[in-house]
């Protein structure tokens, strides 16, 4: 990890994590157009969370992108993954443009990119129906530290950090914690 020093990422303290999955719900709704109650009541389709609560040995923690050297950027054939140096070095996929080719997910050394079935707009659904080949459209999703919610003053508003009832989740650029996160998810 040579060029990732000081890039921001989400770290979850396993000593504080209660495995309640609140961060997953917060992540899913923060990346949708709905709050939880509206999504549930209106039965809106919402993408799965970009983070995942895991149990390893006898502790639980949350895993997601650790903002590493980011081989995903190079892997993208249509060049829609960028690192935003103005914003803590966040690596973000342009999900509108993503064609769902899975290259980034394969390139990711820590399995932090989820390939999920795309939620189609009503127009896209009609278009898909007229196509002969019924192939499911995919999207690549990864943690973007809630890029769209970064305040005008540059303040980060990552939904999982706010949602955690035990303050186990923090935003940090500490490389020791980055290594620990990778170690916890058994990649090191």
């Amino acid at each position, binding site marked *: 990890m040579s060029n990732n020093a000081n890039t921001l990422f989400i770290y979850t303290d396993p000593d504080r994590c209660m495995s*309640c*999955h*609140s961060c*997953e*719900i*917060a992540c*899913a*709704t923060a990346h949708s157009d709905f709050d*939880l*109650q509206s*999504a*549930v*009541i209106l*039965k809106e*389709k*919402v*993408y*799965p*969370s970009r983070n995942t609560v895991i149990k390893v040995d006898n502790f639980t923690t949350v895993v997601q992108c650790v903002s590493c050297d980011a081989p995903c950027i190079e892997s993208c054939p249509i060049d829609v993954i960028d690192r935003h140096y103005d914003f803590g070095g966040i690596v973000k996929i342009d999900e509108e443009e993503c064609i769902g080719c899975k290259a980034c997910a394969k390139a990711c050394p820590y399995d932090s990119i989820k390939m999920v079935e795309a939620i189609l707009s009503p127009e896209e659904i009609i278009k898909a129906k007229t196509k002969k080949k019924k192939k499911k459209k995919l999207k690549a999703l990864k943690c973007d530290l809630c890029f769209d919610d970064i305040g005008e003053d540059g303040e980060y508003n990552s939904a999982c950090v*706010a*949602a955690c*009832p035990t303050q186990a989740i923090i935003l940090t650029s500490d490389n020791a914690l980055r290594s620990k996160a990778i170690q916890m998810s058994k990649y090191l």
Partner: protein
Amino acid sequence: MLENYKSVDPTVSSMIFKAEKENIETVWDRHDAMQPQCGFGETGACCRICWKGPCRVDPLGNGPKVGICGANIDVIVARNLLRSFAVGTSAHTEHARHIAHTLLEVSQGKADAYKVKDKKKLIDVAKRLNLNVENKDTLQIAKEVATTSLEDFGRLDGEYAWANAVLTEKRKEKMKNLGLMPKNLGGTVVDCLSRTHVGSESDPANLLASGARLAIADVAMMAMGTELSDILFGTPTPVMTTSNMAVLKKDAINIALHGHNPLLCEVVCDAASLLNQKAKDAGAKEGINIVGVCCTGNELMERHGVPLATNYLTQELLMVTGAVEAMVVDTQCIMPAIVETASHYHTRIISTLDENKIGGATHVSFHPQTAMQSANKIIELAIEAYANRDDSKVEIPNGAQKAMSGFSYEAIISTLALLNADDPISVLTDNIANGNIQGIVLFGGCNNTKVVHNYNYITMAKELAKKNILVVATGCAVGALATGGLMTQEATLEYAGDTLKEVLTALGDAAGLKGPLPMVLNMGSCVDNTRVVRVCEDAANKLGVDIDKLPIAISAPELMSEKAQIIGTWGVVIGLPTHVGVIPPVTASSFVTNFLTEGAKDLFGGHFIVEPDPLEAVEKINASIQSRRIALGI
């Protein structure tokens, strides 16, 4: 606009300010510390019933869809809801049981502190329970009423006497046809709980149906609580009093009575008047000042005009005045936090029921047989505490709000009788039919930190009155609407629509009030909701329809407790549209959500309206009322 407000009661706001200054934690601090609240809990997607769990189904549909046992979200939500209902009903049960048992002890001469205060009510109740009263003395009738009531808890043969007394004939028939008429109280609660055991019932529709049966058992039980209380302590009649935290007196020993059951507070009031001189001797020039909190407050307010200091959410703030010597509590809706708040002052928290002890409080065991001794001890503890009052910490808000109380069913009927002695209810139904009164809305329920304290009640009541809808209130709605100044004649003149104002003025003038009745009729504590049911029943019988056709609705815009949940449910089951202003934790199941908000309408005539915005809620309630008017052809 409301973002920075916690309460719309200025006396509360000044105490919130004082609490902040003195670094005393309040319910709002704890609410903030609890944010964000768990989404699985909020939507009802969490099951903790067995120890394979906890299980949670992903309400967004991406994660697990069933629990480890295979229970789907509909089963999980319905089971959890039914459990809450059973707890709410159990709370009402214990309330009614204490009172019924005390009535029995009175009839046996074992409870000196109590007596049959309202013989007329006793006979009325006996008749409604189909008991023969001819040639029987008061105590004999009391014994039979108490025995029949107590039998209802575990009745194996015959019909549930109180359910028979409460429901209209049409509703009874309907519930029987649906197979949802409960046989007794205890068995119905146990039946509901047993269905929710792991591996028992997994048909969400049948779980909800048993909730409806439970709701009927509950409304009957609540009626028992209210009516037997009236027998022992008197049926309320209109009385003028005051409300909000300014009712505390600087030069008095202030005792706040808090909880729900009138058994305790009535006797404490008696003891206070006997020991008043002792309080004066201890230096309190004005003697003992009793004030009420929550529904104990409502019980005292409706029967004796005792000032109501505040409702549920602000109970701890009352002590922040530094002028409360004792807060005496019995059961239900008592925040454990009051002990911590009291520790900053000289206030003694006194718990009284052996089955409802409060950790950290002084316990004075209270039993009907020895009620007076316990009450005396409580007063003495308060007098003792007065010596430790720190005057530098005392700050009592100014400006107590006038409020009228005591509109029991009987009081309303006697008021209506002033305009038509032969057929009192026709005064109400005629005015509903001619549109002078568009409908009736009963406000009930609690307070909830998810809502600005009292704001929904006050906002909605004003808007509804403007639309010529008669507003009545019970429970913590009373605290809100009394402190908000809406239980006054002035409120009628200022906010009521023209035709409603006309009717209330005709009634008020006839009652010798030289002006209208108050805009909101105060019908008592939360258990007293059945007073309203009786008015509905009379109106329905008069119009020859069942309650589900009447332009009457319930609103619980700030509810939280399990008791309020089951009250709202029986509102729906007896046929009334019932608004809740807090989103219930059921939304993860569209089956349950749809049943409560739509499906129930086909089965019972009533349904839940879920709407957090008070103005939107008024529109939705009014729409329900108007569609019922159209259906009635009025």
